[in-house]
């Protein structure tokens, strides 16, 4: 059967914060352009919806771009590109103001101005919030605003399986309609990837089921390197068992972390966070918690050791007004009312600092291919992201990628039909074979579990050469075993098993890049902490890591210089 092909000017993969912002930017840049937005879930289901705490941008009199910039650079352990950071802090307030114009219900001060709260690693209150459902409100505002543009054509519940590239220029994507199992070519003169993170490669994560690193793998397989993948952010406060996030806003509003002796250990002992205490950056606090547990000061629970997040002194009224979702989630998922008792928490995989290597425009090494949001690494976050910077990042760089893609698309033709068809036909054959694969000894769920386990043991908060090497080897084996999975669902219609199989392959790609880059970086920087190399080594490692896809073997790991500027690397002490 002839493969259907649809053409748009710009194709956007992903309907989360970054994808929607990019789509709106394109629509506003040129109303004549048609936009195809492909997403494997309906946009409002994207995982941006679960972000809780807030979005950072300078808003107060006592704040300025300089301060926000330096906080971010320092938070990144000097691995953030400073040109990117400067652009980011300047655009941030404009982007959040736009979101306000589009209806986002930001929480307010008495005088009607937008309220801001304190956040980890930020030197003043600059995190805008809408109670503690910020991602939810931002995503819904963006999605609803995007509906007014008729030129944004949505392809909901369609799964992009391959980038169609011809002579180093991207021409579109191959997209599998989950509804009917039919693969289509969606052509565009530029493609923007905004597919979100890959937290699902870990067993214990705040991320939802859809965060399987698809976009990273798509770009990676097409030849774009993945950058800084070894930096995986552990959020200090996840609920044991489920990994559901208790937002940093809980500490921003005054919550304390306590060990089993009820000590505020961040105050009692020196963990590098200084007077910031609970409002230190995430990497440091996560390490502190692990150290407390290792020193025997953890509490014992059904899901292993944990610490307490104590909000009881805040009082019901404040909790209800500022962080109602924290209360809702604790009651629902762990049976604790934070008004009355401390919430058990432990560090949980939260965010990928790394991702598709892009420049400040979001452009990748493939012409016409852009990336933004969590799937991209524009090098804003470096070795450690500051909480509340990433929602803003989705907006600032989503918009920029959108505008740059428009500029690019003006000077480019559509490419050859035959070539794309040939690629798509191969893709159809591959997917059909997978769907009909009844022989094989491997189960998707088992491989996923093994991948998860090895990622936790090798690439946890603390890392070591030996366990990392072991992870690399296990991943090699899993890669082989992947060829031996069998599927039980042969249906064309809404075959979620087929999708899960493809997602697993994408996860393996990401996991491999994480583990391989981690082994190479023989220092401790930001979220990457090695027991065998406990210090930062600017001499040898003040550079980004790049992982290049090598068919049939582990990635080749290379480097890329960091763009410095105003701020020289110094010891990171708070």
């Amino acid at each position, binding site marked *: 059967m002839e493969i259907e092909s649809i053409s748009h000017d710009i194709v956007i993969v992903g309907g989360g914060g970054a994808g929607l912002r990019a789509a709106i930017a394109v629509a506003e840049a040129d109303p004549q352009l048609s936009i195809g937005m492909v997403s494997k879930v309906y946009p409002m289901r994207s995982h941006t919806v679960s972000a809780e705490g807030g979005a950072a941008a300078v808003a107060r009199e006592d704040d300025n771009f300089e301060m926000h910039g330096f906080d971010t650079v320092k938070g990144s352990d000097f691995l953030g590109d400073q040109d990117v950071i400067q652009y980011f802090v300047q655009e941030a307030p404009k982007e959040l103001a736009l979101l306000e114009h589009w209806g986002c219900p930001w929480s307010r001060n008495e005088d009607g101005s937008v309220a801001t709260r304190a956040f980890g690693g930020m030197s003043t209150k600059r995190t805008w919030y809408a109670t503690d459902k910020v991602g939810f409100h931002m995503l819904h505002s963006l999605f609803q605003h995007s509906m007014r543009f008729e030129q944004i054509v949505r392809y909901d519940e369609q799964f992009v399986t391959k980038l169609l590239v011809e002579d180093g220029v991207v021409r579109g994507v191959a997209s599998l*309609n989950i*509804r*009917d199992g*039919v693969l289509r070519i969606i052509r565009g003169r530029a493609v923007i990837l905004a597919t979100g993170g890959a937290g699902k490669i870990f067993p214990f994560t705040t991320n939802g089921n859809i965060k399987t690193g698809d976009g990273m793998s798509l770009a990676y397989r097409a030849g774009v390197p993945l950058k800084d993948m070894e930096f995986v952010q552990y959020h200090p406060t996840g609920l044991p068992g489920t990994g559901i996030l208790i937002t940093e806003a809980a500490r921003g509003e005054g919550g304390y972390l306590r060990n089993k002796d009820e000590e505020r250990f961040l105050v009692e002992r020196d963990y590098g966070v200084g007077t910031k205490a609970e409002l230190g950056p995430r990497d440091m606090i996560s390490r502190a918690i692990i150290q407390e547990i290792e020193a025997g000061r953890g509490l014992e629970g059904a899901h292993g050791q944990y610490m307490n997040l104590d909000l009881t002194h805040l009082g019901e009224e404040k909790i209800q007004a500022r962080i109602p979702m924290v209360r809702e989630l604790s009651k629902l998922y762990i049976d604790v009312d934070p008004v009355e008792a401390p919430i058990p928490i432990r560090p949980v995989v939260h965010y990928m600092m790394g991702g598709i290597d892009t420049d400040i425009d979001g452009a990748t090494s493939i012409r016409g291919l852009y990336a933004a949001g969590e799937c991209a690494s524009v090098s804003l976050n470096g070795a450690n992201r500051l909480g509340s910077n990433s929602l803003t990042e989705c907006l600032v760089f989503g918009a920029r990628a959108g505008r740059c893609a428009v500029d690019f698309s003006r000077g480019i033709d559509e490419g050859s039909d035959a070539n794309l068809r040939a690629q798509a036909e191969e893709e159809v054959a591959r997917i059909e074979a997978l769907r009909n694969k009844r022989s094989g000894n491997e189960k998707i769920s088992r491989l996923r579990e093994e991948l998860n386990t090895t990622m936790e043991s090798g690439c946890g908060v603390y890392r070591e050469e030996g366990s990392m090497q072991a992870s690399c080897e296990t991943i090699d084996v899993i890669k082989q075993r992947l060829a031996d999975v069998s599927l039980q669902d042969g249906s064309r*219609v809404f075959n979620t098993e087929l999708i899960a199989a493809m997602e697993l392959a994408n996860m393996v790609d990401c996991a491999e890049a994480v583990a391989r880059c981690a082994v190479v970086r023989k220092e401790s920087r930001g979220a990457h902490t090695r027991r065998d190399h406990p210090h930062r080594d600017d001499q040898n490692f003040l550079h980004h890591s790049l992982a290049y896809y090598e068919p049939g073997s582990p990635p080749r790991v290379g480097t890329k210089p960091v763009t410095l500027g105003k701020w020289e690397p110094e010891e990171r002490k708070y």
Partner: protein
Amino acid sequence: MARPAHPHAMQPSRPGSTRTAPPQMPPRYPMGGRYRNYTLFDATGLVYLLVGFVALRIVWALGSGREAWQSMLNQLENPLYIAFHVLAFVSVVFVAVRFFSLFPKAQPPRIGPAKPPPAPVITAMLYGVWFGITAVMTFVLIGGNL
């Protein structure tokens, strides 16, 4: 097993690309669980319609002279009429209780420049007015003079 809903319920304007199973009504509908009160609430429509027409007959009879009135009164003594009015009374009270609990939140937070009072106050007012009017009505109808 639930019965089918309208075959077009929640169908998209552009048909989907695969065959779908038709939508089903919620299994408890119409008389199970909470639905019973809703269905009964709707069904009181019949009682209200009839009560309205009966009241019309009564008032019409009053306007048609002493004899017509007397014959009307005689008819009303028919046990069927009394039974119907008992049903009507139950219905009216049922409607009042259900509606007064639902009404307050249907008030917009602001009507023009005016803000309605909080919900409990509205409920209290509704009950107050209801009892008040009923008391006055009853008093007048049983022969009292205002």
